[in-house]
């Protein structure tokens, strides 16, 4: 058993860490507080040029061919500095991977290089709807063939990067009569297509620089060839690709949790009360011990899920376990970090306040942790039922 990263994975981790410290960390608080996401878009372009948008994508499509473990460690390092940037990178990678997995050669060549190179600031994954969150098969957006075009009607909700995405992977019902989940197909829709309307941006608790919008399809006409994968096979595609996205979001959560604990632990060794450093108090020591233990466990779960995916083994259960555990460990770490800083931790003068807000969504998006538990228990019970 070998638990260390390869030289290439270490170098990618180092590169992500150096870039995050030098370019992302200095603007993270400003991005959180301000309305100008220009600095984040500029950093996304630089990250694309370094190869961070297609870590697990083939060289032929402009990817880095660095694998899933490298993707995980890179996400963690980026998220240590800026969760908004990290979620955009995670979704971009997922969009590239879904196109690579099920797209036609023409579709792969048309879109993946544009995301990998940064020509497109982002790609969007448009699955969720008002009435279809944890239950995406309950979606109502439709696609109907009219001559040589598909006509999309409906609305998607909580779509990451929508205002600056170059392409949208969109799921819509193509067979209303089919059993639930069997009549959904997947499409590629370019930004600027008439009838594709970017709706209201959500005012969120955290991850402010990453836009989250409603996306409306109003008689949106796309070419017949915009269908991705097989007709009516879209739901299976979504379920399969979300597994990889979960490794990304779990790794993001881990990064935020580590950032919070590193900050709070350093603070505890400097802050004195009752004539001694607060790190001398057992109450603080236990928070440090518990949080770092949980974050280390999260890291190992993520590495295992990433390694299995990289080896081509089934990884859905492991990805769900890792996402669920890592994001909850991150939230607990952020809670403890704020507590360790006391009143200061609740102010925006210290970054743990931002970390706590940024971490909160990680147990919700990319499949709520309740859904992760459904997946994990289903996979386990399969082996017990007669």
């Amino acid at each position, binding site marked *: 058993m070998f638990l260390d990263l390869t*030289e*290439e994975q*270490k*170098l*990618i981790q*180092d*590169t992500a860490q*150096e*870039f995050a410290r030098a370019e992302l960390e200095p603007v993270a608080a400003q991005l959180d507080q301000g309305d100008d996401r220009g600095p984040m878009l500029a950093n996304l372009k630089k990250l694309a*040029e*370094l*190869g*961070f948008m297609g*870590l697990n994508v083939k*060289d032929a499509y402009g*990817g*880095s*061919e*660095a694998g899933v473990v*490298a993707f995980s460690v890179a996400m963690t390092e980026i998220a240590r500095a800026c969760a908004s940037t990290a979620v955009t990178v995670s979704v971009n990678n997922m969009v590239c991977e879904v196109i690579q997995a099920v797209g036609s050669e023409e579709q792969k060549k048309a879109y993946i290089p544009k995301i990998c190179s940064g020509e497109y600031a982002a790609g969007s994954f448009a699955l969720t709807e008002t009435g279809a969150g944890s239950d995406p098969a309950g979606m109502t957006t439709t696609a109907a063939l009219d001559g040589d075009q598909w006509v999309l009607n409906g609305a998607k909700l909580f779509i990451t990067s929508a205002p600056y995405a170059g392409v949208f992977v969109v799921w819509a019902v193509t067979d209303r009569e089919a059993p639930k989940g069997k009549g959904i197909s997947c499409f590629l829709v370019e930004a600027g297509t008439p009838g594709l309307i970017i709706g209201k941006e959500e005012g969120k608790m955290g991850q402010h620089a990453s836009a989250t919008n409603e996306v409306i399809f109003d008689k949106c006409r796309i070419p017949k060839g915009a269908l991705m994968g097989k007709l009516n096979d879209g739901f299976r595609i979504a379920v399969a690709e979300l597994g990889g996205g979960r490794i990304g979001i779990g790794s993001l959560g881990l990064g935020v949790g580590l950032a919070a604990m590193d900050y709070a632990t350093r603070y505890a060794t400097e802050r004195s009360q009752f004539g001694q450093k607060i790190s001398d108090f057992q109450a603080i020591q236990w928070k440090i011990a518990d949080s770092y233990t949980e974050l280390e466990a999260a890291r190992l779960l993520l590495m295992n899920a990433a390694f299995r995916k990289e080896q081509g083994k089934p990884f859905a259960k492991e990805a769900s376990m890792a996402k669920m555990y890592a994001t909850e460990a991150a939230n607990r770490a952020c809670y403890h970090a704020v507590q360790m800083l006391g009143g200061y931790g609740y102010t925006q003068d210290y970054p743990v306040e931002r970390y706590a807000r940024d971490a909160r969504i990680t147990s919700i998006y990319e499949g709520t942790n309740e859904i992760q538990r459904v997946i994990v228990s289903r996979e386990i019970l399969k082996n017990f039922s007669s």
Partner: protein
Amino acid sequence: MKILVCIKQVPDMESRFRPNASGTWFEESDLAFRMNEYDEYAVEQAVQLKEQLAGEPEVTVLSIGPDRVNEALKKALAMGCDRGVHIQDPAPQDKDPWQIASIIAQFAQGEGFDLVFTGMQSQDRGSAQVGVLVAELLGYACATTLVGFSFSDGLVTARRELEGGIKGVVKLGLPAVVTCQLGLNTPRYPTLPNIMKAKKKDVLTIPVADLLHEEAVAATARFYPPEKKGGGIVLEGDVGNLVEQLYGILKEKTTVLR
């Protein structure tokens, strides 16, 4: 043109250092290692020169140390160097700068390098001797602490940082050794595709015993943390009195008021 870049792998300078068991170096277990910062400027400058000359020069990157230095070599290869040389030495810290320079010179002799780039010093030992000693042993021209570099018509124009903020400009014919200082350039981040492709570049490994023929001329006697400083001086009294005390201290103990 043949270019050699000499790099060292050093601990992350944000680490906590403690003396090792022999008390002549720091304990290396638990430390994260990186490429010496000054050597990154050397790699960057060599790769920039290769780009300026339309890719013609072959850039060889060399490092002495245990297997972990392969990571630093891979980074240099990912930044654009063409081939690596790993001189295997489990304990380079036990060799003095003279021996390290002699190992490099022994390798370089006969290789016909036109230009050698290295950092002005390492971040851990900081002797700043290896570059100049390599130049002396090879009989090459040498300029140290470069903050500017250009190459044209077969001549290197080096802008050097001197004492007291003064800069000097020297021109060197080839072959030459230059040592690189902070401010020379901004090292590129290696791109991920280049990191993956660096796997395929050749790294030659040579046991250090094949190249080391010199005795040490200096030995490290002791490695220890500096004495803890006192708590400083806390002045007490009313404002007028505080000003007088402070004025007295500044006048007697510093040059601020002279």
